[in-house]
């Protein structure tokens, strides 16, 4: 029971990070009906921007040393804003000039961006895990956890039980807060209305006076901010380095596909499902000898989960079924 609970906690934590990146992918997909393969690298670059503010540069040193969490949070928010601006510039300069109905050039551009961003960050910071490491947004020392269950011995020492680490809870809550913010932005603001209009019917959106280009830029900016938050949350766990998002992106893609590529809520659920499959599914199935190999390649089970979902629901759990009228 303790082990099961532990695996659930772990699954939700990694799942929340996949969910953040999956939501970023879906934001772009809803606006442009294409997958931004550079999403993970944009997020990684954003995390490095946060790293510069939090560790490498002294611009935030006016925030007192004792209060290192405030400093990290300010760095993270600055990184989200800067990566949003960078993403808008990328969209304006490299994506918008191309015909939106012709997907191939834009997909090639996002693949090119993937390589360029990775190489540039690698060139500046090298490909090692960064030292000093990226500080966490939440206390993440070894003893920062709540114990659930467990037994107390005669001397009053507690052992066993499931450990809910503070930073794990913080990661899940951050995702929930971000989703809530996104909900308000899309449903209560004029720009949000324009975004939903463009993703529902681009042509009619233009005909009511929506400047679709600006809306696409807004989508890219939101996606970059979301991805950057995910990358900053995951950085202390994976250790900050230029290749850290490559695997996260694959899991996030699987999550987005399971949830339905055009559903933001679906992406969040899909990301969490992938997290749980990885932790609970791989955890238990790999105990069985023929499937021990899963420990080495846990991705296998996630992709099976995606395959099965798509086999029975081709548009994902929450995606809209597209019916083309001809």
């Amino acid at each position: 029971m303790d082990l099961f609970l532990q695996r659930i906690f772990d699954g939700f934590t990694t799942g929340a990070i996949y969910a953040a990146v999956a939501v970023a992918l879906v934001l772009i997909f809803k606006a442009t009906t294409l997958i931004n393969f550079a999403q993970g690298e944009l997020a990684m670059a954003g995390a490095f921007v946060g790293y510069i503010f939090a560790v490498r540069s002294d611009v935030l040193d006016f925030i007192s040393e004792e209060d290192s969490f405030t400093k990290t949070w300010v760095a993270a928010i600055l990184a989200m804003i800067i990566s949003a601006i960078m993403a808008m510039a990328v969209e304006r300069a490299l994506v918008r000039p191309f015909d939106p109905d012709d997907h191939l050039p834009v997909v090639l551009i996002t693949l090119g961006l993937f390589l360029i961003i990775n190489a540039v960050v690698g060139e500046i910071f090298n490909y090692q895990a960064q030292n000093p490491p990226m500080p966490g947004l939440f206390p993440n020392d070894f003893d920062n956890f709540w114990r659930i269950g467990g037994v107390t011995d005669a001397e009053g020492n507690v052992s066993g039980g499931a450990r809910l680490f503070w930073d794990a809870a913080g990661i899940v809550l951050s995702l929930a807060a971000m989703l809530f913010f996104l909900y308000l932005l899309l449903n209560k603001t004029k720009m949000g209305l324009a975004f939903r209009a463009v993703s529902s019917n681009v042509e009619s959106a233009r005909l009511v006076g929506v400047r679709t280009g600006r809306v696409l830029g807004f989508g890219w900016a939101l996606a970059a901010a979301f991805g950057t938050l995910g990358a900053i949350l995951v950085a202390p766990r994976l250790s900050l380095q230029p290749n850290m998002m490559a695997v996260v992106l694959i899991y996030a893609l699987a999550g987005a596909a399971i949830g339905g590529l055009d559903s933001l809520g679906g992406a969040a659920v899909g990301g969490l499902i992938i997290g749980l499959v990885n932790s609970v599914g791989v955890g238990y199935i790999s105990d069985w000898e023929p499937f021990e190999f899963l420990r080495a390649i846990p991705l296998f089970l996630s992709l099976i989960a995606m395959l099965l979902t798509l086999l029975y629901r081709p548009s994902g759990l929450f995606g809209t079924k597209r019916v083309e009228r001809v």
Partner: protein
Amino acid sequence: MTIAETESRGAAGSSKEIMLSVSGLEASYGAVQVLRDLSLDVPKGEVVVVLGANGAGKTTTLRSICNMVTCSGSVTLEGDEIGKMNTADIVNRGVAHVPQGRGTFPELSVKDNLYVGAYTRSDKGGVEDDIALWFEKYPVLGERHDQAAGSLSGGEQQMLAVSRALMSRPKVLLLDEPSLGLAPIIIEDLFQTFKQINEEQGTTMLVVEQNANLALDIATKGYVLEAGEIVLEGDAKQLQNDPAVQEAYLGG
């Protein structure tokens, strides 16, 4: 509801003030020329209809006015050239367009469709009043204001598309085959509604249609488009009685 009509900048020498004027319009898709030297005038406060068979260039004419296709020629709104502007600016100037096949936002709620229609407006109170007005006019939209527009019937969606377009309080409304795919009884209702809106609000309309009879009934003036060229123009009544038009578009 009244629309403030403050501008009175009529074309000199003409008895009627021209709201929308198109001249020398040419459009092509690749090597295929769709419109040839097309010119038409829409007088203020009137309903003008463009008749034509499938492929005559009706939709392209409307899309050219909104600069949604590559085209050349001149388009003026109340005398100001709008031909080179981008679509959003043209809409801002007061052109509303109901595209063929309804053009609602199927995933958005009925109410959000109306809000999007008022995208260019910044008077919040006025927008709310207008929404209330449309819900009063079409109670079915009011009853289903929370429902996704895609779940409405074809006729209801067309009503929504028209209401959506009028939410911007346009000077001129472009209607692209509003009767397409609707039952005859609903089409009749719809054209009555157009007439009513035109009379009550003074909205100028340019309608392209295959359903010639109903369209000519509510129009003051008509054009006949064939293979991208205007082959005939005149008063609506005159066209209704024209033997050539009767044979081609009114079923003899």
